[in-house]
């Protein structure tokens, strides 16, 4: 659209013709108050807060529905408009309970803010307020009608945004109320809590957060969700407790993340695993009676290290296996493989693989522009989704696909062995047999079906592959795309850092960045690097693994297989999982919300996680590994480069941020990699090494440290042959999250609530 010039309050503004006046004004820092207007959702013109005067028009116009055109003149700051806003708020407050002192939204309420700015302090009314009892719609969502201002954001977010359509309005006039469309005031939905998030007042409240705290009594920590592999930015509300700091809320008040407005049930409610009573807070050692008994950290580390050292020295590193995790930070996984390879001297290192990243990266090597980031999904004009059910397994991806189709008219094509909810947004759906993913490349190459023809007619394509596509079919498909040109790819793994675990070399044959162990390249600086591939996950977790010792960090293979009972088992975990229960030494670890570092989502987007909560008794896996290495007599400075690098001078600039300004000097130091690393427990000391050594991880530091997502690239060249490895897609639902999800009471409740509803509706 061509730009037009128009005038608001005497100020000449320019915007593309057809821009909504409210958007144009907000961009120019002219505030137009509104309750019902929400960018990206359908227009309502219901709240009447945005009324403005347009010259030559008799009636006041709503800025949220007025599209700007050349030469228009608007007034937004006249006494007339001030009176409209004030009167409107007076009307709203007439029936509003004004129970701000006990309202969850008190302090972060749009009605409060608007009343403060535009409203009147005097009540004109003497009548009793309309009252209705509060309703509980689900374990996650409560509705308090008296507080509701009927802006209909929740209805639209649920319907248009989530494609769930669980909410509606009943009654009319002043008796109107938001109501679940299902029977009995119960929400039969995805329990995403988006309705709570967009509620401008405290009408919709969260089952887990309500009446927990006042908003200003929390610290807000911006980090990344610990659950699925999409990596939503999440803001944790943290309160100090006598023992440390506890998370009381998770939301997405910071809309700048790759998730924009979105957060799902797991991100919003599933944080409570961190505060679970079942958390391990003391190291455990198996005693003479064969029982796990509490021990001090000193004893536990010493016991584990002594045994590992003894086995290594007697039988060599091959006798020891190491299993890493899809939920550790990049720095921890990197440290773990470095520890395994240089301290234990073993390539027996792997993790539970949820997608075939080695093949994916190998096939895309040298084509950085062909590996899609998650943000690309929000704008790609044509997308082919192969397998999987993103609505359940990758809620954010599903959100982006829906939104892209809805707002940008993107064309979504789906090839799947079963019907999925996203079919509703698809332009074309091709049902294929469960093993049909293997033949997908030839199916597309030949282009005989209408489905293939439509896809081939697209100028550009973004192919999103579920973990069902692996090995040769995956390589073939990418080869087809590269040959065709203008095709980008993404591969879907399962957990918060499954991509990072693969990227960081939790692989018996591959070093970080998919560098083969026999041609270590940049990793030649590692001391005593063994150069033959070690045992993989299946071999190490077999009942006859033959390993003398096994170190399992943040994984729970015993839930699936029977481990070798003769092996000396050291486990680092949050909970006494099936695996930890069999261990000889259990080391209680900090959760992802209790430490800092970076994560890589399944699209290769790297983001910072920041320590939010604090739990006494636990240690980050990073620190545990450093202590184990130290107790084994390793040279720590070689494992974690700390102490000497960087600068300690302040270069003449103030480092204080006393007046509230950002510590620009610290940011500058961090961005230029000059921040001194003073502690061996500082994960960012290793981050620097990762950026230096790992192909594809030389990232834009300033963006990363500013909490933005930074896309990592596949290595420029790769010459390994991916080993055939067992890929076990996790197939989580909206309310499960592997072993971790079992320890979230909120997710358990939601799953039960949902199962009950499903059983009921199945009878229809």
């Amino acid at each position, binding site marked *: 659209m061509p730009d037009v010039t128009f005038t608001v309050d005497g100020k000449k503004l320019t915007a593309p013709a057809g821009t909504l006046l409210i958007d144009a004004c907000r961009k120019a820092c002219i505030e137009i108050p509104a309750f019902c207007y929400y960018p990206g959702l359908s227009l309502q013109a219901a709240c009447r807060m945005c009324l403005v005067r347009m010259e030559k028009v008799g009636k006041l116009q709503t800025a949220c529905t007025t599209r700007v055109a050349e030469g228009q003149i608007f007034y937004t700051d006249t006494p007339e408009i001030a009176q409209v806003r004030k009167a409107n708020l*007076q009307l709203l407050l007439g*029936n509003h309970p004004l129970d701000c002192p006990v309202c969850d939204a008190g302090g972060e309420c749009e009605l409060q803010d608007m009343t403060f700015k535009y409203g009147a302090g005097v009540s*004109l009314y*003497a009548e009793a307020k309309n009252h209705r009892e509060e309703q509980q719609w689900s374990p996650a969502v409560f509705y308090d009608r008296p507080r509701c201002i009927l802006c209909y954001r929740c209805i639209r977010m649920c319907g248009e945004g989530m494609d769930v359509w669980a909410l509606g309005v009943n009654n*009319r*006039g002043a008796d109107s109320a938001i109501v679940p469309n299902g029977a009995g005031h119960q929400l039969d939905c995805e329990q995403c809590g988006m309705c709570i998030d967009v509620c401008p007042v405290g009408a919709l409240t969260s089952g887990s957060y309500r009446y927990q705290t006042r908003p200003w009594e929390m610290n807000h920590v911006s980090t990344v969700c610990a659950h699925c592999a999409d990596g939503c930015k999440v803001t944790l509300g943290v309160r100090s407790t006598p023992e440390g700091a506890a998370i009381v809320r998770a939301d997405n008040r910071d809309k700048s993340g790759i998730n924009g407005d979105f957060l799902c049930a797991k991100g919003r409610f599933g944080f409570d695993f961190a505060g679970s009573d079942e958390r391990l807070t003391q190291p455990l050692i198996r005693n003479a009676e064969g029982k796990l008994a509490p021990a001090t950290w000193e004893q536990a580390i010493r016991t584990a290290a002594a045994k590992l050292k003894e086995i290594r020295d007697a039988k060599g590193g091959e006798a020891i296996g190491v299993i890493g995790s899809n939920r550790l930070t990049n720095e921890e996984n990197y440290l773990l493989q470095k520890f395994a390879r240089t301290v234990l001297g073993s390539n027996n290192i792997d993790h539970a693989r949820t997608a075939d990243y080695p093949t994916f990266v190998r096939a895309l090597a040298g084509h950085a522009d062909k590996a899609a980031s998650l943000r690309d999904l929000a704008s790609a004009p044509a997308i082919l989704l192969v397998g999987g059910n993103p609505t359940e397994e990758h809620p954010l991806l599903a959100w982006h696909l829906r939104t892209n189709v809805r707002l940008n008219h993107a064309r979504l094509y789906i090839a799947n062995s079963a019907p999925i909810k996203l079919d509703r947004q698809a332009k074309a759906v091709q049902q294929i047999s469960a093993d049909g993913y293997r033949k997908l490349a030839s199916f597309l190459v030949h282009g005989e079906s209408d489905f293939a023809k439509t896809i081939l007619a697209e100028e550009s394509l973004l192919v999103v592959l579920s973990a069902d596509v692996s090995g040769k079919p995956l390589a073939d498909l990418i080869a087809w795309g590269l040959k065709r040109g203008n095709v980008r790819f993404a591969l879907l793994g399962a957990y918060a850092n499954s991509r990072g675990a693969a990227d960081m070399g939790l692989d018996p044959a591959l070093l970080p960045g998919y560098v083969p162990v026999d041609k270590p390249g940049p990793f030649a600086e590692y001391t005593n690097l063994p150069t033959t591939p070690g045992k993989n996950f299946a071999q190490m977790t077999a009942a006859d693994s033959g390993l003398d010792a096994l170190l399992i960090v943040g994984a729970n293979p015993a839930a699936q297989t029977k481990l070798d009972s003769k092996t000396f088992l050291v486990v680092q975990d949050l909970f006494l999982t099936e695996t930890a229960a069999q261990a000889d030494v259990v080391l209680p670890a900090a959760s992802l919300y209790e430490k800092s570092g970076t994560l890589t989502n399944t699209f290769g987007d790297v983001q910072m996680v920041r320590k939010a909560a604090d739990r006494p008794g636990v240690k980050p896996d990073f620190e545990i590994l450093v202590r184990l290495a130290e107790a084994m007599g390793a040279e720590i400075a070689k494992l974690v480069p700390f102490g000497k690098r960087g600068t300690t001078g302040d270069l003449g600039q103030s480092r204080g941020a006393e007046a509230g300004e950002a510590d620009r000097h610290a940011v500058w130091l961090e961005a230029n990699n000059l921040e001194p690393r003073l502690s061996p427990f500082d994960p960012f000391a290793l981050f620097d090494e990762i950026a230096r050594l790992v192909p594809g991880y030389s990232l834009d530091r300033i963006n990363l440290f500013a909490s933005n997502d930074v896309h990592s690239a596949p290595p420029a060249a790769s010459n390994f042959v991916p080993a055939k490895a067992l890929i076990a897609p996790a197939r989580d639902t909206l309310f499960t999250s592997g072993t971790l999800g079992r320890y979230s009471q909120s997710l358990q409740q939601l799953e039960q609530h949902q199962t009950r509803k499903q059983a009921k509706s199945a009878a229809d």
Partner: protein
Amino acid sequence: MPKLVSHPDEVKIISRRFGQGAEKIDRYIELGGYEAVKKCLAQGSDWIINEVKASGLRGRGGAGFSTGMKWSFVPKQSAKPKYILVNGDESEPGTCKDHLIFLHDPHSVIEGAIIAGLAVGAKMGFIYMRGEYRTLLEIMERAVADAYARGFLGKNIFGSDKEFQIITQTGAGAYEVGEESALMESLEGKRGVPRIKPPFPAVVGLYGGPTVINNAETIATVPHVINMGAAAYAAVGSPRNGGTRLFGVSGCVERPGVYELPMGYNLKKIIYEVAGGIRNGRQLKAVVPGGSSTPVLLPDEIDIGMDFDQVGKAGSMLGSAAVIVLDDQTCMVEFALRTISFYRHESCGWCIPCREGTDWLKKSLTRIHAGFGEATDIDTVRYIAENMLGHTFCPLGDAAAMPTIAFVKKFRQEFEDHLNGKPCPLAKMGLPQFTVV
């Protein structure tokens, strides 16, 4: 069947077939029915639109917009089907004209709809009737079936190459659905809430297609306009107000009823001559000239011609031409309360000023009428109403605010007489008890 009234001053155009059995198709044809549509089939769409424009026919729903103009806004070419929509959701208190048309002359609505369809090139029409008019639905359905049987509706109407279909539908009992876009929502099976305008129905209407939506009386008038000729029809009324209107006179008069009078007929004469004057020899206190949403007029303000322009000049509106006459036994506070109770009940709740404003006005007026008002309450009532006016999503808010402002303005003393514990001197309707919380 309600008794029909009549008066020598009446000019019977729309009502000429009332009470003559014209609900039966043969009788309707005998009385000259379906001739206009044949004329229109011969003349073509441009001629029809020009004829209706020239007749000065203005929308009978209340807004008084030129019918011919409205039709001319419909694009000639459209990818989506065009529709004719007959608004028979007659719900404005005091109004009962469409009721009589549906009852006595249903075919005139069908014929008018066909002509509108020919004018704008629509092949489908809907007759949407008020939910409470279910008894009339049978009559209308019968008429539609008869018209189909005769080949007046269907694929090749009257043997021509033109198609026109009609579907009848009733609402579920919501005043709000009388608003044209809310009616479309309702017809589409959704909650009856108005749409954002623009786009206007002529461009994006029912099911997204260009739609002509007219009041039932307007549509029923169209065949008469065609039959009489535009000039003859226009000559009946006052300048820029073509033809006649069905005036529904109710309240404290000797002979209440629906009278068809030329546009511009004097209001005072309507009350004192046509309707036989004030009942039981009492004095006139006030007149609501065009349905409950129009501002009240005082006895010294009623010597005016009843057309859109003259009533507007007098500070009120012709609206649906429902004249409500109030005598000196009427408590105006109670009348204001009755009026606002209706709008409080009928507000759809979509926008804040209407939803909250009607609720508060009702509460405050209830309290004032019960004698618990304080001096400042009167100004508060007016303040609320004035701040609703022009700020709501659709005209329902204005319909509630306008009369309230007029009541307070013109009968302030009566409000003051209710204050400070004084009971209503005229209370008789058994209002809800006010309890002090």
